[in-house]
């Protein structure tokens, strides 16, 4: 069976020189119904990888396939046609900046179907209402502008916007790191349901290892533009092999009390 998302040998350079690479031969696959956690520190290239996959960052080498079909070579009208299928969706890290401040929540969520030209306006609104309900938001919020929502609500609106076009692959950039525990749990449950009920392939970028522990099937660790470790979530989190992954996991604070003071490394 081919994976829903398959990225191979992805390279993104800084400027036009192959010398300084933000990503250096990174591979990432996600099967339908699978949640893949992508972890790494600031500057590791995890956001760039997601942006390169959806075509927002230039891909200097490598291929991206969706359901076996290469999409990384698409340009112009072909690319637009592919994007309108809504098969791959990207949820930005900062919901406040990724929602137009002058567009109501419902219109934002209905934007994908509107661009695609699905049905009539009333059908698209119904679709948007359904998407809002899917992420546990009261459709009555639909008339509000994004500025009048809480951070947790805004994050869910951006997820609803992606769901309104029925994606096969969902890439989320730090969807829970800015949320408090109750909102985080809510978002994680929505993602878990999407994976089970609609078999969406989900790539979740996060530095919150705790969230990934509860939900990810596999984990990919990115460090300075390279994949340093990859495997089933339980294996990577409980028995990390790579020194960087070990350091990452040892750093996670626990509610059960102070960590054994970790060797203070400074940089």
């Amino acid at each position, binding site marked *: 069976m081919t994976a829903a998302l398959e990225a191979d040998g992805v390279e993104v350079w800084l400027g036009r020189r192959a010398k300084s690479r933000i990503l250096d031969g990174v591979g990432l696959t996600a099967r339908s119904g699978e949640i893949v956690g992508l972890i790494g520190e600031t500057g590791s290239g995890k956001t760039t990888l997601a942006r390169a996959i959806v075509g927002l960052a230039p891909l200097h080498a490598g291929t991206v396939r969706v359901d076996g079909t290469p999409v990384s070579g698409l340009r112009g009208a072909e690319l637009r046609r592919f994007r309108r299928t809504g098969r791959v969706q990207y949820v930005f890290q900062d919901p406040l900046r990724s929602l137009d401040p002058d567009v109501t929540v419902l219109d934002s969520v209905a934007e994908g179907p509107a661009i695609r030209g699905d049905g009539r306006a009333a059908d698209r609104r119904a679709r948007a209402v359904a998407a809002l309900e899917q992420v546990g938001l009261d459709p009555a919020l639909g008339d509000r502008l994004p500025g009048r929502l809480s951070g947790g609500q805004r994050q869910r609106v951006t997820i609803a916007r992606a769901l309104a076009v029925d994606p096969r692959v969902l890439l989320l950039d730090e969807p829970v790191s800015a949320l*408090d525990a*109750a909102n985080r749990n809510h978002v994680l449950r929505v993602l878990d349901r999407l994976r089970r009920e609609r078999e969406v392939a989900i790539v979740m970028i996060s530095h919150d290892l705790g969230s990934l522990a*509860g939900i990810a099937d596999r984990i990919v660790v990115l460090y300075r533009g390279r994949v340093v470790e990859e495997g089933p979530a339980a294996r990577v989190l409980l028995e990390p092999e790579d020194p960087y992954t070990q350091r990452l996991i040892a*750093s*996670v*604070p626990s*509610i059960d009390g102070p960590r054994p003071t970790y060797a*203070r490394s400074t940089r």
Partner: protein
Amino acid sequence: MTSPLLASDPAAAASAAAPLLRVDDLHLTAGARELVHGVSFGLAPGEAIGLVGESGSGKTLTCRAILGVPPPGVTVSGGTIRLAGEDVAAYTRRQWDRVRGPRIAAVFQDPASYLNPSLTVGRQLTEVLRVKNGLHRRVARARAVELLASMGLHRPEHVHDQYPYELSGGMLQRVLIAIAVSGDPDLLVADEATTALDVTVQAEVLDLIATLRAERQLSLLLVSHDLAVVAQLCDRVVVLRHGRVVESGPTRQVLDEPADPYTRALVADHREYGLDRLATR
């Protein structure tokens, strides 16, 4: 971990001998709307308290009021804030200048916005040392490098001459902490100071704060939405909800056997996902 207030409730804490910080029945109002409705807690010398709650609970407002920098439009409409016995709620700007540094200092979530982008970090640290501690230029520079080194920054002489944009978020937060402790304060207020940092960097900064506490007998008021962060450093926890204290007590007691239903929900939410669950799954 022993503290005179460890096992006491807020009322008993009030009567404890000479607390460093004593917030009593604090009310904060914005226009006609009251946002904080009578918050009370105390902090003994050397103690670390965690102020937790969801967004909108009033924890940040309370913290700003304690620092004497409430958001525009927000005023203290009742209660007292005593810092080493003195009521600071009515302090003038000049009086605040006197206590900021030697008594109380703070670090926040976004260190970059508290530094001047066009001056080297060393220059900014030196300036504080010269103004607050009256050090001579050359002495101040040596002291600044020394401080940066004690923040665990490698090559402190080099960092001293760098501009804020050349440093990572974690390094900037260390510089901010250096500035905060340069006046040798009794109380350090950390408002979501590690929230924006990578998990490895967060661990390092938490370690740094723990070390500083031990070395300098620093008291700590830690404001955070993350219970795990509070569990790393704090002796006691104060849980806020909608501008009221719903529960307070020793950290382990509050987090392991929460008495208030809201605290229970908060802890349960936190524990629902986490590395610890993996081992038992």
